[in-house]
């Protein structure tokens, strides 16, 4: 029973951390689904949102605001910053490049990443800023079944709940609202969407704003877990295997992908790692994604690419 308990603990921990990856991946899916652009800057957006949030929070608590007010105001401030970013990105990066191909837009988002990373650190500072929005201790459950019980991190659970709410909300948004439909049209074909009167500038602003808010949510969870610092931007890279497995355009796929990556990583590290030198987490997710692609070139949930001539 000890072994089963151990496996279960690792598995649960992995699944939950996978959900946290999904939070970041969701931002990518949103933008890709709605504009066909792979937004490399999503990681930088998480950083920017986190920095804005934590610095404002620190500032307000320093000036003796009551905790609940400080949190709300800081969230509002960070959201405003993300809105501004969305506007600037749409105006100066995406707008001028509206009819270029995917690779060019992807490169432009990399350029935007640099700008966001540099600017956010210049304005808000480049230290490590701890964030305390969620409890970070752990529950121990089931200690009557498994010796020692199973350790579950409360933060991870919060992350899971939040991700669930987000996913449900986004799914409804895309399927059932007029804006959601317009977003899907834009993703399919920019020029065609423009020609039927869909205001692309506004749509893209909305998309990036929503992605920015998703980044803010991700920042609250990840910032609590790791502290708000530059290395958060590397989450963007970790989200890639999640997107591959889940497909670039599927919101539930991002969750499933995240679960698979999170669980896979942790299990591989504990059970496979010691045999080949440890530190497998570094690359395991990518190799897993590669293997999935070899079987299904469009990911598990992605749309099948049909080529016609």
């Amino acid at each position, binding site marked *: 029973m000890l072994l089963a308990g151990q496996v279960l603990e690792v598995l649960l921990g992995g699944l939950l951390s996978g959900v946290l990856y999904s939070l970041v991946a969701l931002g990518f899916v949103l933008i890709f689904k709605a504009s066909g652009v792979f937004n490399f800057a999503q990681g930088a957006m998480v950083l920017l949102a986190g920095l804005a949030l934590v610095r404002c929070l620190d500032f307000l608590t320093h000036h003796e605001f009551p905790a609940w007010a400080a949190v709300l105001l800081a969230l509002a401030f960070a959201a405003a910053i993300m809105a501004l970013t969305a506007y600037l990105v749409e105006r100066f990066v995406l707008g*001028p490049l509206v009819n270029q191909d995917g*690779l060019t837009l992807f490169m432009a988002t990399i350029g935007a990443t640099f700008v966001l990373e540099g600017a956010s650190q210049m304005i808000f500072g480049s230290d490590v800023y701890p964030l305390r929005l969620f409890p970070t201790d752990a529950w121990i459950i089931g200690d009557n079944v498994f010796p020692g019980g199973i350790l579950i991190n409360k933060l991870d659970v919060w992350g899971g709940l939040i991700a669930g709410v987000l996913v449900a909300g986004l799914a409804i948004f895309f399927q059932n609202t007029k804006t959601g439909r317009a977003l899907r049209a834009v993703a399919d074909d920019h020029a065609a969407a423009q020609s039927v009167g869909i205001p692309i500038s506004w749509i893209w602003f909305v998309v990036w704003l929503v992605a920015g808010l998703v980044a803010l949510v991700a920042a609250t969870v990840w910032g609590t877990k790791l502290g708000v610092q530059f290395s958060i931007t590397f989450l963007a890279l970790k989200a890639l295997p999640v997107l591959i497995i889940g497909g670039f355009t599927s919101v539930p796929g991002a969750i499933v992908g995240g679960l698979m990556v999170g669980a896979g990583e942790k299990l591989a590290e504990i059970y496979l790692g010691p045999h080949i030198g440890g530190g497998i987490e570094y690359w395991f997710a990518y190799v897993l994604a590669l293997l999935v692609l070899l079987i299904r070139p469009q990911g598990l949930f992605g749309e099948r690419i049909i080529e016609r001539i």
Partner: protein
Amino acid sequence: MLYREAGQFKSSYAADMAIFPIRQDRIALLLLLAFAYIGVPLLAEFNLWPFRSDYLLRAILIPFLILALGSIGLNILMGYCGQISLGTGAFMAIGAYSAYKFTTGVHLPLAWIGEEISIPALSVLPSILLGGLMAALVGILFGIPSLRIKGLYLAVATLAAQFFFDWVFIRVKWFTNYTPSGSVAAPELKILGLTFSTPTERYLLCLAFVTVFALMTKNLVRGNLGRQWMAIRDMDIAAELMGIRPLYAKLSAFAISSFVVGVAGALWAFVYLGAWEPLAFNIDRSFQLLFMVIIGGLGSILGSFLGAAFILILPIALDQVPHALGIPVTVETVSLLVLIITGALICCLLIVEPLGFARLWSIAKEKLRLWPYPY
């Protein structure tokens, strides 16, 4: 006036197919090569401006040449054959570490077969080339997925290569000959009886490699194989229906690209760094080469040079500007500023000319042909 082609008639296909069909271009190239091979060493020898110290040689020209070589390699894969690669750093690492192992003798005990492979230490030049060959073999391996996986998805496969090899060269101590610190040092550069130790000599060595490789790559790219690559890039279905085999074209692109990148990696380690650790070839390096190729111009050998120059010089230039203007800034602020400006410039360039500097260069040449007339 200067750049007219009037009177330059081509009377054979060979003349029409030349790399530099316009006589002025040929003259310019000869002058450039003369300056590079003769002028620079002379200036450096007598410490004349701008070679008063060996900073320019050591810190700018040598890395420029090697990274330009790497960009040429990546350009083959991305620019000519249209396959995205985000793992260039890993292939440089493979080239560097393989070359290192070849210079120190390869001893591979394969207990599970009951055999062991033992290769004596080789000299520098064969080791570098063999390092490239090893990179090519791995390149072919990671190129196989490209037959099924396309576009951005393939980028992830190359990322897998990047992170996997990052890990391999740290964890598998065999590659670093079990040094305690994990970093290794290059051997003395003895090639064909000559020793390359001073910056000028190292510069000439790199220059020789780059000239030879650039020429061979240009030849490949303007011939049948280059056309096959571009056909696959532009419309792989139509290419297949014309008899071009996607397998051969893609794998050859991966192989040759990785070979060149591997050689560049070996040169980077042996000639520029001298002593290195796996971090030298991490994902930042991959992105650096990616930008060089995109900004320089996909599908252009000249573009690889231009992009390398730009990406290399930009941070150095930006570093100097605050000093020159007398503004006191911290090192940290400067590096953040460099980040912001690099990003902004990338966006600007992509907006203005998605085809990079190479395209801007051809447009400039077009205008030069008309000069001093407006049209």
